[in-house]
């Protein structure tokens, strides 16, 4: 079980709800993934339009915990206000805190992120910060009151997979007791398996499932890969070697010539 701010969840996949071909396919993917947590967002509502309500009802029927985000926020003020509005709508003090620093890379503005995290934890929020793999930023976020960290492994939506394995390894070993969720950049189930093999606690992804030809099947594939990676981490993997080593014992081998 994974403990996040005192809440135990069995699934180590957190699934985004955006970019699916239809609400029905989103629902299928969520069920196939067996996830316990989905991410959601807030946007301006058009007068007389019930789109937000329809989506809200769909999420309610899925019976999963909701992790609202502050996607699209570029300042501390925007992120803090969005978090407060999300708490009002979704009745949860969980918030996936994003403060974007660059339009092209969607890289987090880590300075604003730390400041917003400090403000929000002070107001009772349980902050899940979308951050980089920088260790000092991670320390500052923990000092600000975060009890979970969500480092990227590649830019959002890039599907590149883990592009800096040494940094991720370093992060895992520096923070052995902090739940670490890889958020952003995962493209394939094998990417998710790799970060789980490194000992990360969970994976948050969206586009890799929503953009697949069969999102529900891909969600199931990710769940399998994440479970496999987790089991492998605990099972103790052998290290790679430069030379071949026979797997069949040599002792007692027949001599034919």
């Amino acid at each position, binding site marked *: 079980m994974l403990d996040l701010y005192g809440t135990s969840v069995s699934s180590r996949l957190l699934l985004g709800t955006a970019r699916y071909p239809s609400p029905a396919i989103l629902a299928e993917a969520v069920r196939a993934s067996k996830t316990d947590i989905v991410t959601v967002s807030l946007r301006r509502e058009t007068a007389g339009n019930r789109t937000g309500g329809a989506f809200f009802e769909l999420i309610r029927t899925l019976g999963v915990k909701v992790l609202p985000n502050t996607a699209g926020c570029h300042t501390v003020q925007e992120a803090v206000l969005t978090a407060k509005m999300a708490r009002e709508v979704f009745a949860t003090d969980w918030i996936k805190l994003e403060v974007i620093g660059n339009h092209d890379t969607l890289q987090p503005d880590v300075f604003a992120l730390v400041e917003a995290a400090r403000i929000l934890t002070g107001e009772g929020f349980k902050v899940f910060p979308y951050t980089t793999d920088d260790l000092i930023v991670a320390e500052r976020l923990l000092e600000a009151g975060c009890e979970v960290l969500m480092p990227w492994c590649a830019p*959002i939506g890039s599907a590149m997979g883990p592009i800096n394995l040494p940094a991720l390894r370093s992060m895992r070993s520096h923070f052995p007791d902090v739940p670490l969720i890889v958020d952003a950049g995962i493209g394939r189930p094998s990417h998710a398996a790799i970060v789980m093999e490194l000992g990360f606690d969970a994976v948050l992804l969206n*586009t890799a499932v929503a953009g697949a030809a069969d999102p529900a099947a891909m969600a199931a594939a990710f769940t399998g890969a994440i479970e496999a990676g987790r089991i492998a981490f605990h099972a103790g993997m052998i290290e790679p070697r430069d030379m071949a080593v026979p797997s069949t014992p040599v002792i007692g081998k027949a001599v034919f010539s």
Partner: protein
Amino acid sequence: MKLTINGEDHQTDISVLSELLVSLEYEGDWLATAVNGELVHREDRPGFALNDLDRIEILSPMQGG
């Protein structure tokens, strides 16, 4: 008076937030409101007085990653 609602200019004589929402057919328990960058809780909307040039944000749930 003149208000900015979700980024668009709006003229109205209504000066209470909850009444403004009803008049514009914003309904449902899934809306969050902010005025001039500050959250206005659902239960505070009936008594919340609006002033000329107020900036109002009305947000609702949507898909997110």
